[in-house]
């Protein structure tokens, strides 16, 4: 398998850039006190980009960490006997990490816009606390003046960075370490899961990842980056300003990242550079101090409207455009063509969990009941979606569920996968009571679902999609190998290749999901569920929206994967479904109408009545 990253190109280019920058900038006549704040904001921007650009969490409350980290470091350096700046930064990192953890606990209870709103409000608490109540420690409105410049205690000697030129090297080194670590994080399994959360949190969770845990982790990482940058700010200015706590600071961080380009790690640095350049240009060179923020606001609005991915994103797009001109386009493949090829026989690591951890289950197929739902009901307000359902599936069985629209099939499925908690009743899976468990836990136990409407990670490639699913199996629900590498995950490549082969997507592995044909997306949807190596696979209308040709291929695909698996399939296409399954359960008005073999169901009068004029139209 080819790894997608040329090793250390970004790191080496960053190092060269940082080494050359002061000379180039001096030649351009840019003073060093202009680049130092760019580095500091670039550094905290890295953390923010991990949070926003990679995980999709837009926080308007970074000022809390910027201020807290800065104040802690400044306090250590000005009010205690400690004068080792590295130790102060370490203390600041720990403090901001702890604060990040506490804030994250509250803020991450909600998502999206609500999350953004909560972060604003929480950051304001810090702003107000910093003033009167904590003024004894923070200096209140005065801030903490007299912060020393950075130094490096090496034991045998101490390097002092007193001038702006010297401080540049200190800040540059901090930035470099920051970017190297961030690149590791981005390339780690956690990094991929973060992007999964950004693109589709629901599916990431359904694939067995504890997304709350990962979100909290990245929130803390961002807080630490921001806190350290706050510490550096005090050292640069010789003064830790209370302004760091202001809402404006949070806004500045957001704007710089959006201007530079979110999801690029280097975007915030670019954004900070543009910001500080414009500020200096208007304030000092043109003497239009009052105007610069207005201009900046207008530029920002235009950028958000027309250049969504910021400057860095725009450059990447330009590069892509140029590359497309120079290189001949790759021939596109049609989905049907792929599907026609016989599926290669690849063994998947299967059902390794269940009650007995490990292999024996694989060798001897288990028998008995795998899933049992007892007296399951679901009410939404006054509406009853499911009523007193008793339902059992055995190991190795392929079960079909049919029912007219509104029969409660999807709700029933959602209860089985624990996406929706039942109002009453219990669900037992492989002997475990899973009622009320989390969807990611249930996936970890080996029960998962492919969705009626594709739930894919649209901005990633097919390979990355499958990797996200496979990581759930291989790493468990939560593991904080932030600095680990993908190649370090044992069996990942084989697992992905096996799944891709199974759903006929091997040639499309490095294609972006957004470029796939519908049939291919549908197969990937099933592939995602398969890649979690489920012992019980639920398929919610796998044939929905497909052309007759695609249906034939997909039925063939389902048949091939059905061997040795336990599956429950909902579909409206009765002919296809009856071809696949051993038994059929018919739902009507939220309850089980009848259960039997396909032939029994076909012959059942009640089923015919229930479907009179219902399903015929749809299955045609």
């Amino acid at each position, binding site marked *: 398998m080819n790894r997608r990253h040329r090793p250390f190109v970004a790191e080496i280019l960053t190092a060269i850039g940082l080494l050359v920058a002061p000379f180039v900038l001096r030649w351009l006549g840019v003073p*060093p*006190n202009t680049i130092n704040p760019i580095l500091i904001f670039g550094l905290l921007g890295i953390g923010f980009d991990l949070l926003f650009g990679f995980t999709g969490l837009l926080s308007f409350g970074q000022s809390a960490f910027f201020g807290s980290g800065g104040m802690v470091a400044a306090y250590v350096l000005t009010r205690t006997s400690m004068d080792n700046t590295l130790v102060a930064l370490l203390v600041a990192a720990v403090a901001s990490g702890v604060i990040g953890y506490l804030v994250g606990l509250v803020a991450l209870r909600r998502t999206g816009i609500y999350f953004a709103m909560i972060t604003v409000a929480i950051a304001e608490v810090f702003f107000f606390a910093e003033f009167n109540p904590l003024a004894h420690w923070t200096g209140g*409105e*005065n801030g903490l003046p007299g912060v020393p410049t950075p130094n490096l205690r090496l034991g045998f000697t101490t390097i002092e960075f007193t001038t702006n030129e010297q401080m540049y090297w200190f800040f540059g080194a901090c930035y470099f370490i920051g970017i190297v670590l961030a690149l590791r994080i981005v390339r780690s399994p956690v990094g991929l899961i973060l992007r999964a959360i950004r693109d589709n949190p629901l599916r990431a969770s359904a694939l067995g990842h504890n997304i709350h845990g990962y979100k909290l982790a990245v929130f803390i990482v961002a807080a630490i980056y921001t806190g350290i940058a706050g510490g550096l700010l005090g050292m640069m*200015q010789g*003064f830790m*300003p*209370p302004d760091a706590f202001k809402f404006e600071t949070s806004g500045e961080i957001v704007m710089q990242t959006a201007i530079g380009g979110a999801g690029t790690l280097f975007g915030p640095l670019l954004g900070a550079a543009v910001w500080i350049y414009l500020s200096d240009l208007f304030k*000092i060179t043109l003497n239009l*101090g009052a105007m610069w923020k207005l201009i900046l606001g207008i530029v920002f609005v235009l950028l958000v409207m027309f250049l969504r991915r910021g400057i860095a994103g725009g450059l990447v797009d330009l590069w892509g455009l140029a590359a497309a001109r120079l290189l001949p386009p790759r021939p596109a493949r049609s989905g049907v063509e792929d599907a026609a090829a016989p599926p290669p026989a690849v063994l998947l690591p299967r059902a390794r969990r269940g009650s007995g951890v490990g292999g024996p289950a694989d060798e001897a197929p288990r028998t008995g009941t795998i899933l049992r739902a007892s007296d399951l009901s679901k009410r939404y307000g006054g509406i009853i979606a499911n009523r007193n359902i008793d339902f059992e599936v055995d190991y190795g069985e392929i079960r079909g569920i049919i029912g007219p629209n509104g029969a409660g099939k999807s709700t029933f499925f959602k209860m089985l996968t624990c996406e929706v908690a039942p109002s009453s009743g219990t669900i037992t899976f492989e002997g475990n009571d899973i009622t009320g468990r989390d969807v990611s836990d249930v996936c970890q136990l080996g029960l998962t679902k492919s969705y009626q409407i594709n739930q894919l990670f649209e901005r990633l490639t097919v390979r990355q999609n499958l990797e996200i699913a496979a990581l759930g199996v291989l790493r468990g629900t939560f593991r904080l190998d932030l600095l680990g590498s993908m190649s370090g995950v044992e069996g990942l490549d084989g697992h992905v290749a096996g799944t891709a082969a199974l759903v006929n997507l091997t040639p499309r592995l490095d294609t972006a999901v957004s470029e796939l044909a519908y049939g291919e997306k549908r197969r990937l949807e099933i592939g995602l569920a398969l890649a979690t190596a489920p012992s019980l696979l639920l398929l919610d209308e796998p044939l929905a929206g497909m052309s007759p040709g695609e249906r034939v291929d997909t039925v063939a695909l389902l048949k091939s994967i059905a061997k040795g698996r336990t599956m429950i399939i909902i579909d409206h296409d009765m002919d296809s479904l009856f071809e696949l399954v051993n038994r059929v359960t018919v739902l009507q008005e939220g309850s089980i109408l009848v259960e039997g073999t396909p032939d029994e169901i076909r012959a059942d009068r009640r089923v015919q009545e229930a479907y009179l004029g219902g399903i015929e139209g749809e299955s045609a």
Partner: protein
Amino acid sequence: MQGEDERKGMELAVEHINTSHPLMKELAPGVDNGLLGKKLEILVADSAANPNQAVQAEQSFINQNNVMMMTGSTSSSVAVALNKLADREKIIYLPGISGSNDTTGKDCARYGFRQGFFGEMAANAIGPTLVKNFGENRKAAYMTPDYTYGHTVTESVSTYLRDHAGWEVVTNQVSPLGTQDFSQYLTNIANSGADFLINVNWGRDAVLSTQQAAQFGIIPAMTLVVPYQIPFLAPEAGPELTEGVFACTEFWWTLEDEYPLVKQFVEAFQEKYGYRPEWGAENGYVAFAHWARMITEANSFYPADVIAQYEKGETIPSLMGDVFYRPEDHQCVRPVCIVRGKARSEMQNDEDFWEVVEVLSGPDVIQPVDYLGCELGEI
């Protein structure tokens, strides 16, 4: 607004230094169409009374323009931050308006020299006036802005009144800088049973808090005192509110009747800017003149030489008589005055808001050298 006035005073000083204006010659005789053969140029940035912006702007100036001296502030938190920056960057700093005791007290700086008056001087000056006019054992409510200026002024004034006349602090309402709605603070004051409202707020906060105190009927029910006179409070809030109010300041233009140099200054300023200067302008002008004098006397721009010249503590002229800088804390020992607000009917012209009650000499009102704990840093 206060900053605008201060800046104009400084700009006028620069102009007078560069043209050897007779008034400047009185204060700094060594000025000769510039300083040591060089013309002065002034660079201006808006700090919005915000220490962070001030520090950033000064750092740009230091790096990009190689400035020789930093100045300005209408906020003591700016002054304190720039004091520290001055010591670190080894550049002379002249705080402008800075009322905090700490600027030449616990946060004093080797490179910083304050010409203007501050909380402790104001307290020692206005205290006797208040006691004389209102007697002993009164109840006072304080409004304090939440930064070094506010805290130190309130501390100095309340301590003086308590120790010398048994005045009681019934409440001290501390509000953050930039508060717009003072209703909660004022409600506490209205229900505190105080006889006096001692308003230490500055700038916009002072105007808004005073106006709202009138809305709530606290003025005139309580007697307003402004221990540290806020330039332009009277025109903004209206003489109805400042009538009869006692305040301490370091300069008021009607002193021109007593001091010829004040008259020269007021005339020159009014001619250039179209209004009579407030004490911020006077402060900026005199601080610049003193600095020019030190440079010409030391015959050097080198900061260590200039500091040495200041630290000689020589008696030098100001607009209001002789003054000197204390070598121990770099504070100028200068006269202050007590003013009382005129009623609208008493005003001779539309800038005649205050009547000077008394001028007090610097040594009489300044605290002992070691009282505020200044320890100067290294050169």
